[in-house]
């Protein structure tokens, strides 16, 4: 088989690349090792409503479980901060349908798509990566391509075999565990987040509603923590008297929350999405980041093919770092500071912010958040708190 571009992995970034490149008229093959694209998911399924227009994705009820109007944040001692919009701010997706539909959009744009096709290694010719050795069911397949896109998730098999350094230290990953379950008593128009060093070390517990009484209930904790994510989630459910007898799914995965890949391109191989560690380090969401990276990568793939100049692919690294990379490094800095917060700090900060300008906080204006915190006497009187907050300005 020979294509202009082969894309390995049909999560979020892969189908976006495949769709955009196929739309420009080039031959593309999108492969995924799973028999059903999108399943199993490794995701809490929440995403901002802005992405649909921005990345030209239909707002299709087939994969939108629920519209969300904001968030409620809970401190370790139970103080609450509610950020509620009058309009829909995000949605909870059904990833199993969404991912498959993204692959469908790629196929409709002209790409070939092969599920249950696992990339095992790269093919090298004259020292250069010339394609992918794969397996479709039990049949070996050789796929040759001018450009190879590694969108193969956290394990990044293809990227690493192609010699792209995707290594990140263990502290730059979250271990994540989630139930889709029946759960009652939480406002289904909001996502709910619990913070605390005893609740979820470095991370948080989430409830993302899919129905009035059904939600993704999950946790992310630092992957170098001695206890497992499952241990902490089960503990939280037990302590909150939430029955665990209506579990519809169990989802497991590792989430990169830092350690962004420096060189996103090696000759004719590009890495995108989780494989490139392109995830928001604060909340661990990576779908919007994958869409952005996929969009930038596909733009430079098309230009490189048009001008028959593969060195143009290097512009993907430059443009991603100039746009999203710089922003995410800033978010990573915030995450590293928040890791130093005690439960007492979290209680105090959430108390202070619940009386502050919720609109600005909801808009993600970190400077306004920090300013609101810095004016409080209990912050002003603590040298440690002052110093932590000033690190963020």
């Amino acid at each position, binding site marked *: 088989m020979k294509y202009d571009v082969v894309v390995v992995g049909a999560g979020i970034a892969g189908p976006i690349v495949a769709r955009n490149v196929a739309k420009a008229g080039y031959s593309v093959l999108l492969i995924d*090792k*799973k028999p059903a694209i999108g399943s199993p998911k490794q995701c809490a399924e929440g995403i901002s409503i802005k992405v649909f227009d921005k990345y030209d994705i239909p707002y299709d009820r087939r994969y939108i479980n629920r519209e969300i109007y904001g968030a409620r944040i809970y401190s370790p001692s139970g103080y609450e901060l509610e950020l509620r919009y009058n309009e829909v701010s995000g949605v909870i997706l059904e990833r199993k349908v969404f991912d498959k539909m993204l692959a469908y959009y790629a196929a409709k744009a002209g790409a070939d798509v092969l599920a249950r096709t696992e990339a095992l290694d790269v093919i090298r010719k004259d020292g250069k990566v010339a394609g992918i050795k794969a397996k479709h069911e039990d049949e070996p397949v050789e796929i040759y391509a001018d450009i190879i896109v590694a969108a193969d*998730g956290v394990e990044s098999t293809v990227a*690493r075999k192609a010699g792209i350094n995707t290594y990140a230290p*263990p502290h730059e990953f979250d*271990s994540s565990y989630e139930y889709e379950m029946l759960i009652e008593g939480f406002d289904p128009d909001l996502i709910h987040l619990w913070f605390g060093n005893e609740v979820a070390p470095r991370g948080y517990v989430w409830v993302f509603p899919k129905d009035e009484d059904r939600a993704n209930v999950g946790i992310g904790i630092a*992957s170098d923590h001695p206890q497992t*994510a*499952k241990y902490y989630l089960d503990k939280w459910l037990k302590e909150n008297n939430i029955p665990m007898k209506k579990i519809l799914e169990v989802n*497991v995965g590792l989430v990169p929350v830092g350690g962004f890949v420096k060189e996103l391109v090696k000759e004719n191989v590009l890495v995108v999405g989780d494989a490139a560690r392109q995830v928001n380090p604060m909340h661990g969401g990576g779908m919007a980041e994958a869409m952005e990276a996929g969009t930038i990568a596909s733009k430079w793939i098309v230009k490189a093919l048009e001008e028959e100049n593969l060195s143009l692919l290097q512009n993907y690294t430059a443009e991603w770092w100039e746009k999203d990379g710089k922003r995410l490094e800033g978010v990573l800095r915030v995450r590293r500071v928040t890791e130093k917060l005690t439960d007492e700090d979290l209680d105090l900060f959430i108390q202070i912010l619940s009386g502050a300008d919720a609109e600005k906080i909801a808009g993600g204006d970190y400077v306004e958040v920090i300013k609101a915190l810095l004016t409080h006497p209990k912050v002003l009187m603590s040298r440690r708190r002052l110093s932590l907050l000033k690190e963020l300005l």
Partner: protein
Amino acid sequence: MPEKIRVVVNEDRCYLCGGCAGVCPALAIEVHASGWEFFQDRCIGCRICINACPVGALSAEPLGVKE
């Protein structure tokens, strides 16, 4: 001297999520659609994979000490 270990998986717990392969600095684990694979000759005994597994599906069997 680093301890030499064999990483083993409890298949009943493992979800084949690929996380252990993602954090392994030595490419000593591959997670395929059909199963989990460990490459003893590449393992550096760092135990990062064991800690990172969200469900505790991995453990180590000691193999002695490297020269």
